């Protein structure tokens, strides 16, 4: 037998389609003698149902294992992120799950799910959101109730949003660690520019601006039953399940949804060659341009599937793999990707490779030649046939599990594929000709209009990159928190009034002379701090040596800890050893010393620090005047001076030392006399409006004899 026979699978129609390929072979190889029994397979077809509130269901009962699964789709996506809040949709999806529901605290929700080995997870992609439930069949009812609760009543608790924002900021700080991530971010930013969400990346500032209200508004906008599809599979009875679903979604009404316009992309190619320095022995390269936006009637789809497989999506047998890796040994990972499902924008096409630095230009040239080859020459019949066989024969792997089948049906409907897409898939692939492949290569691949991004060390490149075009060198900076808010414009009257209030406060706190005599202060206190394990007791001693030295010794159940700052740098002493303080923490310690009232008041009345009056506000039910004061870091401090007794009863400020901005306030009461000056003995600290610590001072010593070693690093 002089030829290969492979049997294709025709799914759902039960017709076996036979593909005979006539590949010339010099001699018959043993595997070519094999014949294969045709496969007849009728995969389960999901039943489509609609709930009374408009939610669409794709159901497959599958009783093989006692499991129950829901894969849900919500029409929304990162694509709708506003420019000043890039990252909103992603953070929303994560806090929708971690923030608990109105009636379930986050810990209780986690405990409830994990104690029955179940999971509810929420996700977000560019063009859709997801929510999944996985549970044992015996827990279906409970699982459904929780699933509906998360979907309908997420609480978006403030502390979980804050945590997620901090994690997002850490992600931004780490985004240059990995060369692929670094290359990809720059590639898409260059390609889409600043006018399209696919070119946007979250920055610390955009993350910080996201509030609980934003998350609630996002939920209110998109999460309505008529905007949700569920693929449900497993060990259940359809009619029983439908009534369970009607029950858990009872009272949840359909609503009209206004989808924001997504900016359109200017498809004019803007070829460029870009270089990012990273001192590595391998260059990461991305080479590409805009891809395709699919429409329901998309005649090129099948030819493109074949073309992409031949070019770089077909794994080991694609041309890029064969040429760059198998024939030249220039990469381990090499290939190309052209998403064919985006419906809001054209997406992109790109080839990728990671190649030793001294073969960088050689690899780029090789990749470009492979792309050109597909445009210039028709694909040989054998290669075409092989690729088509591969697509047809592996088609069955889209039907391995009921969950996969139901999800696939739902996804095709979501993306507006033709209803007969799956039934006609193998026949449509079989029809693709070498001319079709060349035509789509010429239509969709543009080797003369490439955006090239390289990450590596050009000192060791084999040839300069300017043979591919003028090289744009991109400098990568470590992202930093946004700058401090500037002080508002102040009128002459506000500045005069500020001075008057300050003078009254200085007098109330003991008078300028007494305050100026304070060179250092040692405060001992007992504090109770809020921690997830409940209140935590801390015993602490703080040493302030003005103008800028500071030490704090804390005793907790977990052990002792000391923070030491000598005015320019500092360290932390823990049972683990001594660790230097990062610069941003050092700045926040400087601010903390600056804020100590007994030192701040005389300093403000003597120096040229601009202060201004900014109205009044009640503190603990009594009116207080607000003074705005710039701190050493540039962050603005608000001092609240009580109108009645002229004590500083509250201070508030923004703290960016944790990477994200956090609003902190300190409430001071129970002022007592210590050697003629007034010191608060009851101090409450709030973070983002939530109680953080409550301290009661047990002793205050002014101008203590302090040992220099207090501020020295232990041997």
């Amino acid at each position, binding site marked *: 037998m002089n030829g*290969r026979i492979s*049997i294709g699978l025709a799914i759902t129609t039960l017709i076996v389609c036979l593909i005979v390929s006539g590949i010339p072979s*010099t001699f018959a*190889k043993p*595997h070519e003698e*094999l014949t*294969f029994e045709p*496969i007849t397979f009728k995969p389960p077809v999901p039943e489509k149902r609609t709930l009374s509130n408009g939610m669409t269901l794709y159901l497959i009962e599958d009783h093989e*294992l006692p499991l129950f699964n829901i894969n849900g789709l919500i029409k929304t996506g990162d694509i709708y992120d506003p420019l000043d809040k890039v990252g909103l949709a992603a953070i929303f999806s994560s806090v929708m799950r*971690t923030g608990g529901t109105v009636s379930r605290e986050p810990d209780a929700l*986690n*405990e409830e799910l*994990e*104690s029955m*080995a179940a999971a509810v997870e929420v996700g977000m992609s560019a063009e859709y959101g997801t929510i999944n439930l*996985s549970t*044992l069949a*015996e827990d279906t009812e409970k699982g459904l109730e929780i699933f509906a609760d998360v979907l309908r009543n997420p609480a978006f608790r403030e502390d979980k949003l804050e945590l997620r924002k901090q994690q997002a900021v850490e992600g*931004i700080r780490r985004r*240059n*660690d*990995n*060369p692929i991530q670094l290359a990809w971010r*720059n590639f898409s930013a260059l390609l889409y520019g600043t006018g399209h969400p696919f070119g946007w990346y979250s920055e610390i500032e955009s993350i910080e601006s996201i509030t609980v209200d934003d998350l609630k508004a996002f939920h209110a906008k998109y999460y309505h039953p008529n905007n949700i599809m569920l693929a449900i599979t497993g060990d259940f009875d359809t009619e029983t399940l439908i009534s369970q679903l009607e029950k858990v979604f009872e009272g949840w009404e359909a609503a009209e949804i206004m989808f924001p316009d997504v900016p359109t992309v200017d498809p004019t190619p803007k070829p460029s060659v870009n270089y990012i320095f*990273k*001192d590595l*022995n*391998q260059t*990461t390269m991305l080479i590409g341009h805009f891809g395709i936006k699919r429409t329901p009637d998309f005649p090129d789809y099948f030819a493109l599937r074949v073309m992409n497989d031949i070019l770089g999506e*077909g794994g080991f*047998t694609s041309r890029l793999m064969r040429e760059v890796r*198998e*024939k*030249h*040994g*220039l*990469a*381990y*990972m090499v290939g190309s990707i052209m998403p064919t499902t985006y419906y809001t924008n054209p997406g992109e096409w790109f080839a990728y490779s*990671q*190649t*030793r630095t001294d073969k960088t230009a050689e690899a780029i040239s090789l990749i470009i030649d492979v792309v050109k080859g597909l445009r210039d020459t028709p694909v040989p019949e054998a290669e075409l046939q*092989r690729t088509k066989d*591969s697509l047809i*024969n*592996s088609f069955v*792997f889209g*039907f391995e*599990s009921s969950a996969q089948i139901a999800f696939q049906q739902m996804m095709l409907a979501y993306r507006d594929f033709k209803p007969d897409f799956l039934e006609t898939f193998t026949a449509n692939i079989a029809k693709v000709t070498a001319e079709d492949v060349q035509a789509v290569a010429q239509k969709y691949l543009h080797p003369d209009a490439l955006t090239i991004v390289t990450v590596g060390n050009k000192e060791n490149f084999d040839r300069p990159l300017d043979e591919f075009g003028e090289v744009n060198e*991109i*400098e990568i*900076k470590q992202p930093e928190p946004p700058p401090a808010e500037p002080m508002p414009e102040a009128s002459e009257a506000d500045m005069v009034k500020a001075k008057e209030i300050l003078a009254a406060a200085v007098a109330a706190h003991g008078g300028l002379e007494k305050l100026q005599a304070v060179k250092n202060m040692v405060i001992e206190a007992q504090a109770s701090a809020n921690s*997830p394990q409940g209140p935590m007791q801390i015993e602490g001693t703080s040493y302030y040596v003005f103008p800028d030295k500071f030490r704090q010794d804390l005793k907790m159940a977990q052990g002792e800890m000391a923070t030491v700052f000598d005015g320019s740098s500092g360290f*932390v002493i823990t*049972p*683990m*050893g001594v*660790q230097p303080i*990062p610069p941003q923490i050092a700045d926040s310690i400087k601010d903390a010393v600056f804020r100590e009232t007994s030192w701040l008041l005389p300093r403000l009345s003597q120096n040229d620090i601009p202060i201004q009056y900014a109205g009044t506000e009640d503190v603990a039910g009594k009116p207080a005047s607000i003074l705005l004061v710039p701190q050493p870091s540039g962050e603005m401090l608000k001092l609240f001076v009580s109108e009645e007794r002229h004590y500083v009863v509250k201070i508030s400020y923004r703290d960016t030392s944790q*990477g994200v901005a956090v609003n902190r306030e300190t409430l001071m009461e129970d002022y007592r006399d210590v050697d003629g000056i007034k010191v608060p003995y009851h101090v409450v600290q709030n973070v983002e409006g939530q109680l953080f610590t409550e301290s009661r001072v047990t002793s205050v010593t002014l101008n203590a004899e302090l040992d220099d070693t207090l501020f020295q690093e232990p041997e």
Partner: protein
Amino acid sequence: MKKIRYLLILFLVALHGIASAQNLADRVVEHTYPNGLKLLMIKRDTSPTIAPYILFKAGSVDESDDTRGIAHMLEHMLFKGTKTIGTKDYDKEKVVLAEIDRIGDALDMERAKGSRADADKIAELEAALKAQQELAKEWIVTGEYTEIYTQHGSTGFNAGTSVDYTIYTVELPSNKLELWAMLESDRLKNAVLREFYVERDAVKEERRMRVDTQPGGKLYEQFIAAAFTAHPYGMPIIGWPSDIAMLNRRKAEEFFKVHYAPNNSVMVIVGNINIDDTIALIEKYFGDMQAQPLPSEVTTIEPSQEGERRIEVEFDAEPQLMIGYHKPTIPHFDDYVLDMISAILSDGRTSRFYKNIVEEGIAVSANSVNGYPGARYNNLFFITGTPRSPHTTVDVEEAIYTELEKLKTEPVAEKEFKRILKQIDADFIRNLSSNAGMAQQLAFFEGIAGDWRYVLGWRENMYKITPEDIMRVAKTYFTKSNRTVGTLIKKEDAAPTGDKAEGYE
């Protein structure tokens, strides 16, 4: 009354688990051939697909100093074809291959001289090698072996090498079982390791990609090398760069001959099969392979650690942390206890690391794994942490130790045990829903634990663990002198030079 209900619930949970484990026990069919080849099968008719896997108990741990990296290199080379596949005429081709080996050896020897190497001689040998490689192209059909699989609809066609074993994986439409048996037996009997030096270059790129350019990969390599001073578990699977540079076809063939014996392998086929036909088919294609004496196990035992080891790696990346404690491998009872401990520490959002370290904002992630880097020999309880700035690796390390100390002194609550046991039983059921997942799991336990039923006994042992076991095991292994700590430190001096345009960070 309350107590009785509680007991009843426990009983039901346990019963459910037994049922799922029993389901697995009932479904696995075993067959051992006279040549020692072990075949495990599960018939699953959900779709007309199969997942046939072959595992060889041959990993990087079985290498020697002059063959380090060869297990992985051989895995790559077994995709290059056979005497009939990948060639137009093997008899003519083999003459050129021998010449390539001869020149390649000479070239490697010369390059290995380093600064004392003769540059002219290297250039000459490189040219000669290139000429022979060009000649070989006349006979070689690059990629034919993989093409056949692809054309017939394979998915997941791949292989993986670990310290302990090498596994060859694929999924195919179920009517292609015989094709698989033919192709796999052909490569076991007639493999031709052609295009060796080109593939060796690809492996070097793989090393650059996984290790040299990845902060985590770089740290792990140094960490594991510090944790094991004597046992080969400390050596990188892919080999050090200078090891890879000296690998050749002769070494690969030798490793192949010694380790790829039917009695040193496990074959697992899960999916839409007929059991009897499959047993006969495997006999037809693999029955004539000869059993052979098995290579000796590693006899070096890692000496007990006599003090904390700390290493740092400087890299252009944000900090990361790795901690490892030496401990016994399977089937030591303490290994089960450490599996339980790992679940308590880092499985899910109710886990202690998640609640007390991640939710506290100290780290963006903190995880534990019991049994790194392998399971054939005594291994590590492995912990990783990624600090969230301004927290440092010191903060994360301290927070991790706080959790480990709690395990020593505070008995674990019944509720935590129950949750983990329920997860274990649910996983037994969930694992059955994937042909490939089942094939991987059965191959691993049969190959490494010596019997796939280990997984059933494992479940029983997990049920036996008491709060006292946890405290005893934590006290035994989580000691300062028994640990290795690795930290990735940001290298600050790596700054670009020259004029720069505005960039996107």
